[in-house]
């Protein structure tokens, strides 16, 4: 038998034993590589008689080509099998839960605050935050609450010393703004306030947001229009407001503001206690004395102010039925206010 034939048979046999493409490659190199058996045949060319050389050369080349074709075919087959195996091995159970990252949530009071700020910022209200520790002047006196007035008692105040107290209302911030700026003034002032009250429906600390506008020719009608805008933005497009007389030392006239019940649309339900209306805030035209206290000429300028409880709005908006939930910080509660 010719040596080429022997090699071909040997290569064929060995190639068929290869289990994977790598083994096949090794075998291929054994025959076709630089030091492979087929290559070795060519190296032995010199030892062959010259006249037989062309024929020998052709045989070896035929062998090489034939082997290359065979290896290529086998390789293709093996690769295909390997890919199939790999794909099968890599199959996953797509119903296994993904690697989840639980984002946190902002406090509902913050959410309400941000929503309100968004509304008022669009109308040109700046956000002002006053100090939480105030003195009698800013919390009461400048707001036209006389020394002996029951209003000082009406809101039971936490006193820290003779002069200092925890502010009972964000209205205290009004004074600071009006003292330091000239009209036109448009601010909202959200923040913590404190009252000596702790029962099922009151917390000793809660949040208010005060709004203040001072400019020329501001009227009660402007206040009314602003409140309509607030009610529509905060609740529903159909929500209406109703004003009724009230009393705050720092506004005159003063009004209590109700919104039509967004739960029943005003027909009467448990949320509005059957009245069709829900009390949401207090407001009024800034008292002339307050303007004067801040060095603003009440004959030139007028203004309105309103103050609302953020907890109250949050409770109404999200249907939270217990104010204590807002300071318990139960993660199951907070998680419900995710975006």
């Amino acid at each position, binding site marked *: 038998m010719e040596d080429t034939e022997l090699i071909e048979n040997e290569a064929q046999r060995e190639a068929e034993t290869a289990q994977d493409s790598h083994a096949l490659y090794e075998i291929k190199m054994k025959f076709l590589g630089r030091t492979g058996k087929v290559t070795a045949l060519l190296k032995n060319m010199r030892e062959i008689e010259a006249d037989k050389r062309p024929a020998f050369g052709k045989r070896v080349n035929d062998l090489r080509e034939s082997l290359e074709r065979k290896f290529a075919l086998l390789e293709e087959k093996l690769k295909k099998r390997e890919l199939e195996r790999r794909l099968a091995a890599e199959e996953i159970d797509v119903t296994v839960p993904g690697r989840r990252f639980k*984002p*946190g*949530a*902002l*406090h509902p009071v913050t959410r309400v605050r941000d929503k309100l*700020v968004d509304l008022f*910022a*669009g*109308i*040109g209200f*700046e*956000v002002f*935050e006053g*100090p*939480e*520790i105030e003195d009698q002047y800013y919390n009461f006196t400048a707001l036209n609450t006389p020394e002996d*007035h*029951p209003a000082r*008692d*009406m809101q039971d105040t*936490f006193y*820290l*010393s003779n002069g*200092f107290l925890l502010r009972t209302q964000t209205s205290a911030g009004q004074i600071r703004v009006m003292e330091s700026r000239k009209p*036109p003034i*448009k601010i909202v002032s959200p923040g913590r306030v*404190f009252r*000596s009250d*702790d029962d099922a429906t009151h*917390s000793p*600390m809660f949040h208010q947001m005060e709004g203040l506008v001072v*400019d*020329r*020719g*501001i009227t*009660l*009608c*402007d206040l*009314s*229009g602003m409140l309509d805008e607030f009610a529509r933005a905060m609740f529903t497009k159909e929500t209406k407001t*109703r*004003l*009724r*007389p*009230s*009393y705050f030392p720092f506004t*005159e*006239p003063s*009004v209590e503001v109700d919104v039509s019940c967004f739960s029943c649309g005003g027909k009467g339900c448990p949320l509005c206690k059957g009245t069709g209306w829900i009390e949401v805030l207090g407001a009024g*035209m800034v*008292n*002339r004395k307050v303007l004067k206290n801040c060095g603003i000429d009440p004959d030139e300028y*007028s203004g309105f102010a309103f103050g609302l409880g953020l907890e109250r709005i949050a409770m109404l908006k999200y249907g939270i039925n217990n104010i204590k939930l*807002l*300071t*318990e*910080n*139960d993660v*199951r509660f*907070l998680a419900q206010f995710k975006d």
Partner: protein
Amino acid sequence: MLLPLSWLKEYVDVDVTSEELQEKLFSCGFEVEEMKYLGKDVTNVFVGRIEKCEKHPDADRLTVCTLDFGDKGKRQICTAATNVFEGAKVPCALDGATVLKEGGVQKIKTGKLRGVLSEGMMCSGEELGITDDFYEGAEVNGILILDENERIGEDIRKVVGIDDYLFDIAVTANRPDCQSIYGLAREVAAVLKKELKPLETGYTTEKTEEKIPVEVKEKKLCPLYVGNLVKDVKIGKSPRLIRRRLALMGLRSVNNIVDITNYVLLEVGQPMHAFDRNFLRGDKIVVRCAEEGEKITTLDEKEFSLRQDNLLICDGERPVAIAGVMGGLNSEIKQETGEVFFEAACFARDSVRKTSRALGQRSDSSARFEKGVYEIFAFEGMSRALHLVQQLGCGTPTDFTAVAGAHGSAKDIPARKIRTTYQKINSVLGIEVPESETDKILRRLGFTVSFNKKKGELSVAVPPWREDVEDFPDLAEEVIRMYGYEHLRPTFLENAKVTRGGFSGEQKQENKLKNVLKGQGFSEACNYSFYSPKEFDLLRLGPDAPERQAIRILNPIGEDLSVLRTFLAPSMLADIVRNLRRGNADGKLFELANRYLARELPLVSRPEERRTLVLGLWGEGDFFDLKGAVEALAEAFDLKLRFEKGARPYLHPGVTADVLLGEKRVGYLGELHPMIAEELAIERKVYLGELDLSLLSGKFSRDIVFRNLPKFESVTRDLAFVAEEKVTCAEAEACILRASKAVKSAELFDVYRDKKLGADKKSMAFRLTFSPDEKAEKPLSPEAVEGFFEKIVHALEKELHAELR
């Protein structure tokens, strides 16, 4: 303030339903918090006359009666009561009726009692819900026996005074004039556009030579004192009308003189007191402050030891009343009282309030004074009381009147004048209220209005009971609340200038911070700004720890909420404990709030409010998750924070880091001390951290400056070396970065410990990133990188005695 419809009707002809009245009151500023029909639960009960009483054939204790109800016919009723007799008129519930029973309502039906037909039930006063003050005899044991002249067949509610509505009205603090029936009647008359009938205050006097002069030593605390002497007093029961009205308002009848003082308090809003003249010694009244420790026993037989700021009413020798709070037992009105000295005074509301609080002694009088009593009420109240004395025939007013005050009589009180214009009033409202409407509204409320056409000036005289009305905006409020808020035309700041709105830069940074933390899985908590000083002990703070320098609330709700927060960790720990007890095994929370730092204690200057962030993490995760959150913040705000081993008494000594910005300590992080965890029975690990934002916020805002991307790519090489246990990651990192400028970052990715490495040794593996200089023209060659690497290894060997692995 309670308002019975029947009493209101004495002064105003109310021709609307009670529901309409409620609406009207609401619209003009008087919210009706509760409206009650008193006879709601007593239905189908009529006056019947007992025609016949016979013994029940089968029951000794029952009586079978036949009753006549006039045009409603006759009924047979069985009763166990023993006080019924033939000819008696009684209330009787017929078939289908409801009456009261032990706080509930019972239905009455026709039935048989021991075989005998009973078509209803005769009623006691209790079953009608009334007392003797409503109808004499209501409190006897048995059936209520009615007066002989009651009409048979009449609805019992009309007879016993419960066919009436009771309004509970919220009166705002600026309207003490409406803390009375007559004051509310004035508002009702105005809102219904009806006439207000005058208060009857006329009386005649008998001459007397006696004098009881009044000397007021504290004119500020008692701006007015009116006294009157009444002779020939005959103490007895008050007539039914007065007793009923007092009962409707929740007061018990005592005797005619005391009842008159209470009646005037309710009707006019003037607290009054009646002294037994015979027990006033020295024939004078002195209003003065108590001496320290001075004693008085009040009508309710409580003895009080007084302080110097308690105002007293004294006779010539001793205190006879605590001003505005309660009279003394020593001069109480008794059955045999023959002469009475009436007092109607104005006391400063804060003085009464403080005394009443300090002594823990409240009364209807003190409650009324706290709301404010004007001079006019004292004059009116006294006249009304004397009128009633005469009307009831229980005494003779004398011509002795003592008045100590700025004005001698109601007429002398000067009216405040407001000079304004219609236009000014309308400018507050933003609408044009017709002038005639404005006039009418103000007049109905008791204002005197005159308009000077030439000057265009409106002159309004304010009645003496409206001290709250000072300027034209007050008038605007009076006008609009009667004219109706529905007339306002909502406008949207038609005249205002455009302004720029929104959060300030600093507030925006805070919002961003919250959102970064939210993205890191932290939820926002909100805690009270105060806690218990016991928290300091729980957290093992030493006696001199700065955190203990907390501001105390002078009047806290309780010890648990008595000091302002000097740091936030205790609140966060409390939140975590609460969550764990509720089965929330893991979680992440943050709170952004102020802590309050006193500059000195007790406070002299305004304390500092420091914006502070507290972080809490428990259950899943560890120190590095918390640290990662802080690093994410640093990344978001481009802050170069450093972490050093730190110590806090409440944190694990081996797992605590101080957070530094430059050389400044801005916060800490760490694991809750295992001892505290054990004390709180916490089984999961808890991590706490706090950052003082006031120290960081100045560094927050930054301008973004774009840097060109590097032209050539970076090369990374891993480096592992063995070092002593005490060598920290930060030290190794610093050493590497110092050794070669080409290293842009060195990040620890593995720490490995093994006996083979030797005792107290560890292997640290860093990933080094080398980058060519920004201006470099060619990439880093492998040879160059090798050179840097050698330098680094050399530096680690030299400085940290580390060996390359």
